[in-house]
């Protein structure tokens, strides 16, 4: 057991944890923040993606003790209570989710992507989220959602959210 202090979504938590406790279990089961999901046991799916000191990481691949003294952001802290982050709005407006299981991880990953590259090309978005799997949406609308959020963050005119048909 080890005492650690982790700041999660702006609140510091000091707790005794088992050395081997995964960060994702710390988040989900110790802090009861269940928006961060688990979709695999091989660091492949990205459902558990969070921000650790501003960088997107797969929280199933980090031990809670490794996050000692660091800051974490999860989907629950993406936007201040009562408001939506441009990514959250983008996903809803563009039908960027079906079952929603991949969505928190996808948005956390995309938030770092947009931070580093506020106006990514479609290709950059696709490569940028290639560590996150979605089984439902076929990704078209996730790309659209991230483009929408990018435009919103840049303060530009928002792209149409109507479906386009051939």
């Amino acid at each position, binding site marked *: 057991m080890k005492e650690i202090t982790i700041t999660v979504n702006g609140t510091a938590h000091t707790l005794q944890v088992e050395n081997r406790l995964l960060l994702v279990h710390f988040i*989900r089961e110790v802090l009861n*923040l269940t928006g961060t999901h688990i979709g695999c046991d091989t660091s492949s799916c990205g459902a558990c993606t969070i921000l650790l000191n501003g960088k997107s990481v797969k929280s199933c691949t980090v031990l809670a003790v490794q996050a000692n003294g660091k800051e974490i952001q999860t989907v629950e802290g993406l936007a201040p209570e009562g408001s939506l982050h441009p990514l959250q709005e983008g996903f809803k407006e563009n039908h960027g989710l*079906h079952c*929603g299981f991949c969505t928190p991880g996808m948005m956390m990953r995309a938030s770092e992507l947009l931070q580093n590259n506020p106006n990514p090309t479609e290709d950059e978005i696709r490569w940028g989220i*290639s560590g996150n799997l979605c089984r*439902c949406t076929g990704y078209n609308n996730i790309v659209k959602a991230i483009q929408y959020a990018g435009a919103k963050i840049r303060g530009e005119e928002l792209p149409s959210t109507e479906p386009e048909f051939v």
Partner: protein
Amino acid sequence: MIQCKTSKAISGMGHSMKRKEDARFIQGKGNYVDDIKLPGMLYMDIVRSPYAYAKIKKINTEAALKIPGVVAVVTGKDLEQYNLHWMPTLMSDTQMVLPTDTVMYQAQEVAAVIATSRYAARDGKEAVIVEYEPMKPLMDPYKSLNDDAPILRPDKPGKTDNHIWHWQAGSREETEAVFSNADVVVKEQMHIPRIHVASIETCGCVADYDKVDNHLTMYMTTQAPHAIRTVIALVAGHVGLTEEKIRVISPDIGGGFGGKVPVYPGYVIAIAVSFLVGKPVKWIEDRSENLQADSFARDYHITAEMAATKEGKILATRFKILADHGYTDAAANPSKFPIGMFSVCTGSYDYPTSFVEADAVYTNKPPGGVAYRCSFRVTEAVHAIERITDRLAFEIGKDPAKLRIENFIQKDQFPYKSPLGWEYDSGDYVAGLEKAMNAIDYDGLRAEQVEKRKKGELMGIGISTFTEIVGAGPSKDFDILGIKMFDSAEIRVHPTGKAIARFGTKSQGQGHETTYAQIIAEELGIPAEHIQVEEGDTDTAPYGLGTYASRSTPTAGAAAVMAARKLRDKARKIAAYLLEVSEEDLEWEPGKFSVKGAPEKSKTIQELVFAAYTNHPQGMEAGFEATHYYDPPNLTFPSGAYICVVDIDSETFEIKVRRFVAIDDCGHIINPMIVQGQVHGGLTQGIAPAMYEELIYDEAGNILNGTLMDYLVPTAVESPKWETGHVITPSPHHPIGAKGVGESPTVGAPPAIANAIVDALSVYGVTHMDIPITPYKIWKKLKDTGKI
């Protein structure tokens, strides 16, 4: 443009209403099964077999039980005392919950460890020592039928071989006669390999048995909560757990695709343990367990043949199938159709003769045979007919689009009786294909291909024009374990005109909370925003068979329409009473009744509902509620025309999908945005088996790619940018003309991609490649045939 009868404020059918369910998902407030935490909850982990076929000599639990936090280790022998060590499958076969003496596939459940924490349960699992006596597994379904094959299921009385069932349709003799007189006969041997749905949420449950009340609440990842409640009662009724004492709750589901229809041993063990210890027990499988042990899809070996005239008029088809079901038939097909709807394999083409026969066998592989985002074996059927049709085009040197158009069932032939007995409800296949050809510039692509070929470049164009069969189904033919495949809706409108509607289905991401509300909004004029949709709780929702096989809109969606129309009839009576006119003098427009010729005299639906509680006519039942159980008169037959263009590197054989156009006909569209989203997702689950996914076993029975590191679920990089559109031929027998759409693209895309790749390789004389088609497979094929 899709015409809407209602205003945006009402958002009935045709509006791209943003999804009501999204608010919780985007804010991390979804409630999936692993998010459930109950006081005193125990955790379960499962010890699994490293061997595909072995005798269990001994299970030593001593060390495991000494681990702090471990409460119990449960084995097959423990369950045997309660006669809970076997359970029925949905196909009336039997499956072990935990084995007492033999394991039948690698990763089979052998024992369960129960502990006070997830980590302690995992420690306990590592400490259980099982002694096995390995045997040589039977991995090749063709060898299963050999005389010297070991009998895998001696537990079944009188079983002397590994044959499970034989099924056939059509006339063998008539088909043979057509084949023997035909100008042209083409034939290919195809394997549609074993794949896995791999929904991003795995399976799991929390079984919560209350000893005092003798009541079980079962939170679980199921697409069919009501059917599961009945199954639990059938399995556990003898220990006192009868159906009124069971509540199944299917919370938010992180994708299903067919993989969350079966009852897995883990669920049953969790129930048994909770029953014995009187505490809630959580079981969440990890991804590798999910890939290795949960139901697979496909695994059909198909010999497909087509007979035609030399001009290309299709005369007959013949399909022979060997189905590898693993060690038990744990598919989820309607009882009468162990082969599912494979007999839709005659496709979108008009010809009179076909014969299908199938045999299913046991092997030492995991059980299953479930769908992978498709209606009961339709993907296998569509792949076979669409590939063999292309094969014919190649044989006679005809353009595959032209060949299809010349053979299509024409739009005035509907309802069309197919040679194997289905009645296709509606379609306009020519319009669909022409739309797709125009959108992608088919003629331009063919011209480009000619130029590219001159330069030695590999470019292929592939078409798939498929007909699906969904919405099971009419009760005269369709049941699962005897329960007819109707579905249900219950609508309660509150005095202030806001409603709650409950259904026997269960969304796993399809957006039912939005689309069902839109259906009711269309019929009653109550804004969809004010209609709360609930599913998945057997204590509150009406009985239904659940969501799979694109059946929600055709069955429960229709039930919603019928229930809403009952309410509209009631509203009409109340309006006549309040406006003091006869019912015939009233006119309906979404949201209100008005007097014919005097439109200023009207009552809104909200006023009429309020009156149902405050001022209803004497003699009329108060309240404003209706329930409907909808038994569809027929299945629905969505169709599509897909065209794919691929470029293949002539040295590395890397395959790039350059463009993919999908034109779908799912009848009337409830929400275009959601329909399109379903098509996008289905297409990615179509490219997946076409180019990436396959569960591979070695001869010793080891799975070679049982983790997400090596089972290749497409990412945003592999997934092309999809281009979609629609033609609309409403289903004539569905009350709103809808057909269902969620699975069409998964069914239609693989042959379009395979046809494109084979078309590119046709310069080398290649006529067929089994999916998934990879650069390595192409290289090997060309190398083996001396082409490179």
